[in-house]
């Protein structure tokens, strides 16, 4: 059976086609002007390298994708420095646009556009490298990096803005963090190019092998993180299966905790830690009998004693297990526990994490319908948090949550609940208290 060629056209197709025409004209001029063509072997080698590197970007944990493509371009320029650098870099550059993924998706005009912008940027970088060579290698290198980056950004920014109808400022904000990489990878590329000229292809494995290893390790890292996330989610499901009236609670608490963390400008790594702690803050529920967890109405003294005993046993045990300490912090106000073996910085992080999750947990408890009462309105929940700020909740965390929600224009609570649990008997408007650990907000947490 014949498969039909897939062809996807995005709104910015005309811009892409215009760039392709311009690049084709430039290549025709280069070929027609009698420029020297570099040898076929290095041309093929660097072209293949660029193709491979553009199709296997290294994904950094901070979600930045670093393509070592520019490194290959600079390597080619440095390797062809003694003749045919501009034409050689142009031809090698074409390979930079050949993305297998885009071809599979039928984005053929985008593929051609990428080839074109890579061709022009590589040719310009090579021309600058050659012309500034007399001033010294540093000038030549700096000039070529700036020119390549300027053409790359100048072409890709409008293309993305047109195709995805994004504001140019936003596209620039996304592209800006990757700019310093041009210098690091460019320098490495020059080194490889120079070594290639001196000792031939034997220089390439010295760079390619560590790059392949690094890429593989980063890929394993991301896979492991995915496994971690999947495992945590499975246990969240187990918690929610046991206490169905809090379905979606942990995910929402994690979301609010991240809102607060972002407002407080926590580092990416601390945010990641906060997310896991928030997702697992209710894991203790797995140790509490279901009949108590799901009881509508006030707990008896005996039942409350069972919950408290479980809570205390959890806290006592977990604080002595280093990997569980932060989870204890999120579930209790007993800061003395943080002192067991943690450094001062670590203690401060754990305390902050506990404060954040306490506020997020309380906000979700108030704005969700429970078996013993209907959800409160967002305004009531904010007022309650404000009233308890300084005595029960950390005021900074309270302010951060309110600011984050208002900034996003989001609404939670009565009238805005998503996926609320259906109860056989509708809960009363006002309730008597909690039957779950999730509502046992820390007492005396204040700074």
């Amino acid at each position, binding site marked *: 059976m014949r498969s039909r060629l897939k062809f996807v056209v995005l709104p910015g197709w005309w811009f892409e086609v215009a760039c392709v025409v311009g690049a084709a004209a430039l290549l025709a001029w280069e070929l027609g002007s009698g420029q020297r063509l570099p040898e076929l072997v290095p041309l093929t080698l660097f072209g293949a390298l660029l193709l491979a590197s553009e199709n296997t970007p290294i994904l950094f944990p901070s979600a930045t994708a670093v393509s070592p493509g520019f490194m290959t371009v600079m390597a080619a320029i440095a390797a062809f420095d003694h003749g045919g650098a501009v034409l050689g870099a142009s031809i090698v550059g074409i390979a930079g646009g050949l993305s297998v993924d885009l071809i599979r998706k039928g984005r053929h005009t985008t593929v051609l556009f990428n080839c074109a912008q890579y061709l022009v940027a590589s040719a310009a970088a090579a021309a600058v490298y050659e012309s500034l060579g007399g001033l010294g290698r540093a000038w030549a290198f700096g000039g070529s990096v700036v020119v390549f980056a300027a053409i790359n950004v100048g072409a890709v920014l409008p293309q993305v803005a047109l195709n995805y109808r994004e504001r140019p400022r936003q596209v620039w904000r996304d592209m800006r963090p990757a700019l310093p990489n041009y210098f690091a990878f460019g320098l490495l590329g020059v080194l490889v190019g120079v070594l290639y000229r001196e000792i031939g292809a034997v220089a390439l494995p010295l760079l390619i092998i560590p790059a392949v290893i690094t890429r593989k390790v980063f890929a394993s890292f991301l896979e492991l993180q995915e496994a971690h996330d999947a495992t945590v989610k499975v246990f969240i499901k187990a918690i929610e299966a046991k206490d169905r009236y809090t379905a979606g609670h942990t995910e929402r608490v994690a979301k609010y905790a991240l809102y607060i963390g972002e407002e407080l400008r926590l580092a990416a790594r601390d945010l990641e830690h906060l997310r896991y702690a928030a997702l697992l803050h209710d894991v203790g529920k797995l140790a509490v009998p279901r009949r108590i967890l799901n009881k509508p109405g006030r707990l008896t003294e005996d039942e409350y004693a069972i919950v408290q005993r479980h809570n205390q046993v959890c806290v006592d*045990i977990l604080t002595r*297990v280093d990997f569980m300490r932060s989870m204890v912090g999120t579930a209790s106000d007993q800061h003395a526990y943080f002192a067991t073996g943690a450094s001062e910085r670590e203690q401060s992080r754990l305390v902050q994490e506990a404060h954040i999750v306490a506020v997020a947990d309380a906000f979700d408890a108030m704005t969700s319908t429970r078996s013993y009462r209907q959800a409160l309105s967002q305004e009531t929940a904010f007022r309650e948090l404000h009233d308890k700020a300084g005595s029960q909740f950390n005021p900074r965390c309270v302010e951060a949550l309110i600011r984050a929600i208002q900034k996003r224009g989001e609404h939670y609570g009565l009238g805005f609940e998503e996926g609320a649990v259906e109860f056989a008997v509708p809960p009363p408007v006002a309730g008597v208290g909690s039957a779950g650990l999730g509502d046992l907000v820390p007492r005396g947490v204040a700074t």
Partner: protein
Amino acid sequence: MKSLWGRLQPRERRVAAEVYLAVAAALVALGRLEGVSGLVVAAAGMLLAASLLVVVQAPIGTVPLGYALVIAIAALADIGTFFSVLALALLVTLPVLLVRYGPDDATRRMTRWLVAACACGGAAAGMRALAHGTSPDVLLLQVSVAGAVFLSVDLLGRAVLPTPTAPPMHVRLAWPVHVSILCAAGLLTVAYHHDKWMAVVALVPLVMTRFAFDRYAAAQEAYRQTIRALSIVPEVAGVTPLGHGERSAVYAVALARQLGFSTEAIERVATAARLHHIGYVTLDDPEDATTHEDQVRLAKQGGDILRETEFLSEVGDLVEGVAASDVTSREAAIVRIATAFDHLVLEDPARAVGAVQLLKFQQNDPYGAAAMLVLRQVLDEDPAVVERAIASGAPLTEAAAASGAQRG
């Protein structure tokens, strides 16, 4: 607006600081060796020492970043200069190692480095005698041989003189780190030969590799901690003895190693041993699981929970298989024997012998009989495994004892 430095994650800042350190090391150590003076040797030695204290996390164990510098200096400098720089570096490193690892560990590391560096220096000198010239390809040959000798002797040293604070290095897992070190040394050497400033750039791939391994090691530890944390939930709930998961994992790993299982299979049986009671979290009352049928049902529920994630689906099968009437794999048999053995021994090592006798009559399936045989071998060859297992569960049991917590 936050500065570039402020936008970096803490670990990335550390890596950035290391780049600067490596740059300085490369500049001073490699840029000035030609006109050797006492001051330059001192500076090079200090910087080599610093780079020896920065490690690359291999999947198991660590490798100092400074190895690349040792190999490059051996290939570039004459033997006298090499040993001057090395001696100074080791002298500067020693106090830090003593504080960090204690006298026994520090002495072993120092000895290993010294022997490996001597072999490396000798190999480089030998290669210089055999292959004359300073062309880049000759240099590359010299650094490759010197590097291979250094890393081989270092690995041999790890086997002969194992350090108490570091796990044994598994070549099968650590080779990517060694290859990266060797490539960095090669790149450093030929880059320096071409242009001293280029040597600085040559360290970039190694620093990136280090960053990648570092993040992977941190993620691996976090994942293990989550698994451990979750495994103690049934214990805290009182449906299974405190510390049972951790102790069972120690026995399961010992049995799997004895049978020569792959690293992945060892990890799998350890995780299954830790999580084999996870189905019990669905119980409302511990008294609800008294019959064998209950246990099979709960094991299936545990398996179902774990199979919901693709990554733990094999562990889920194992957990279910452990309680099945007919064990159908060696891995399931090992987990079953390990957990059953711990149920009998708990925290009393004196019960180990009796437990083996009891288990002997409980296992009548081929996989179980084979696993039983392996358990006896492990206990004969390494009787301390019982103490190690009890120690691994001790944080939980001691905590429970300290709080006077009632069970159930």
